């Protein structure tokens, strides 16, 4: 992405260039193998659910409060 150059030409070329650079980059990326991936998903899932359950428990406390004040 050159900083100089014709503005309009740059504008027309930008998306093409962008897609080309982007897909080249993704090709170069190191991807996790399926074993790593399941490990990550499990870790994230457990964390997400644990935090969510605590939060939801707090939200449940709200239901009787709502009845009291509304």
């Amino acid at each position, binding site marked *: *992405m050159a900083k100089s150059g014709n503005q309009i030409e740059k504008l027309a070329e930008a998306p093409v260039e962008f897609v080309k650079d982007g897909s080249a*980059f993704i090709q170069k990326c*190191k991807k996790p193998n399926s074993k790593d991936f399941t490990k990550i998903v499990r870790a994230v899932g457990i964390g997400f659910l644990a935090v969510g359950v605590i939060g*939801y428990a707090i939200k449940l406390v709200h239901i009787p409060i709502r009845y009291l004040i509304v």
Partner: protein
Amino acid sequence: MAGFRLIELAKPFLPLLPEVELPYEKIGFDDKVVYTIIAALIYVFGQFPLVGMAKAPVEEVSSPVLDPIYFLRGAFAAEPKTLLEFGIFPVVSSALVMQVLAGLKLVKVNFKVRQDRELFQSCTKLFSILQYFVLANVFIFSGYYGSDLTVFQIALLNVQLVLAGFFVTLLVEVIDKGYGFTSGSMAITAVTIATNFVGDVFGVNQLPVDSEGHTEAQGAVINLLQSMRSSHKSFLGGIVGAFNRDYLPNLTTTLLVVVLAAAVCLLNNFRVELAIRSTRTRGVNNVYPIRLLYIGGLSVLFSYVILFYIHIAAFVLVQLVAGNDPSSVIYKIVGGYASSNNLLYVPQFPLSLLTPPKSVWDCVTRQPLTPMTFTTFLVLTGAWFANLWQRISGSSARDISAQFKEQGITLTGHREQGISKELEKIVPVASTTGAAVLAVLVAVGELLGLKGKGASIILGVSCGFSLLELITVEYQQSGGQSALTQVLGVSGA
């Protein structure tokens, strides 16, 4: 505008605004975890219903004003008709907008000067509170809380919404100032989204669904179990209903959300590993990862901030100025709102181009142009922001190479002068590509009719990842000495 600086505007307010003081001593790892989680939970607990709304507005008025931003709520942890009507949107947007303006040099700040930094911070805070105030009044006067409010009710609603917003601003500041894992808004978003997700899947609270007094559980899974043995539905009808009810979360959307979350996990682990070696000791080789999602979920957040502004502006024009009247000029130019299920306001034609459809079917029949415009909008704003952000946020190619020099590291196969150039080839591409890929993912999710849940889960997971990364680094730096991990029985995070 020579000599005038926007941040000077905050000066008279400086003594008035309460500020969280920086911690006197370094906060330990455990304390940080506790601060972060408790702050986020306080936020969740703050979702109290508002006092002073007109009672039962639906029956009195023939065309009540409904929620115009339902699909944006998930991303900003906003709960309708509670104290947190606008969630953390004003906090997030003011922080992002101010940073972007400073990055574009539209607001002149010298971050090396202490006073400038303070002013900038106060200015951001003021801006956020101002937004709470403006948004609150837009909603009040549009009739969202009922059409004929007394002066007292208006004042009451104002006080509630603005004070709650002020409180949230400070809550975020507590985490941001080093008591917790930055940033505060990320922690709050992640926790709230996790909460909503659990509520949507396993929520046991019963909500009324029809006039006969039947109730259904909020959670999709719980609902499936209940409808299998409920008396007023057939077994098969119950199962079908659990998959396609559209008034509450159903199993189909839940599955889609899970798939999206997994996709973000996958993308988050795409990275290019650069071989590095130490210039001081021989034979020490390592890799420096550059992630595809270089700036995480921030680009999506930015796109959504812009979307929010557009939709609020449209809401002001259509509802406040034109009264949502189909015959007015504004309605014809901008588009109006149609109510759906007496719950949501669905934007009509021109405005609907930037609104995710309510379902796949709607998308094909009513909004055939939306997939293109919506996706393009997300990709363009996301990529533009990502490119800007990697330059201004202290993780640009030049910053990294300066960091390398300081630590005596160099890229294998490059001279020291070449590092910056080599990184310059990788970092901007990584951040913009990552943002574009994430934007496409959000667009796909939203176009399938997730009503904001797609964007929110993607944000939630990517914010979660950013936090997790910080926590891991901090944990390793603290030497793994943590009472919390010992209690929880985690070994070596």
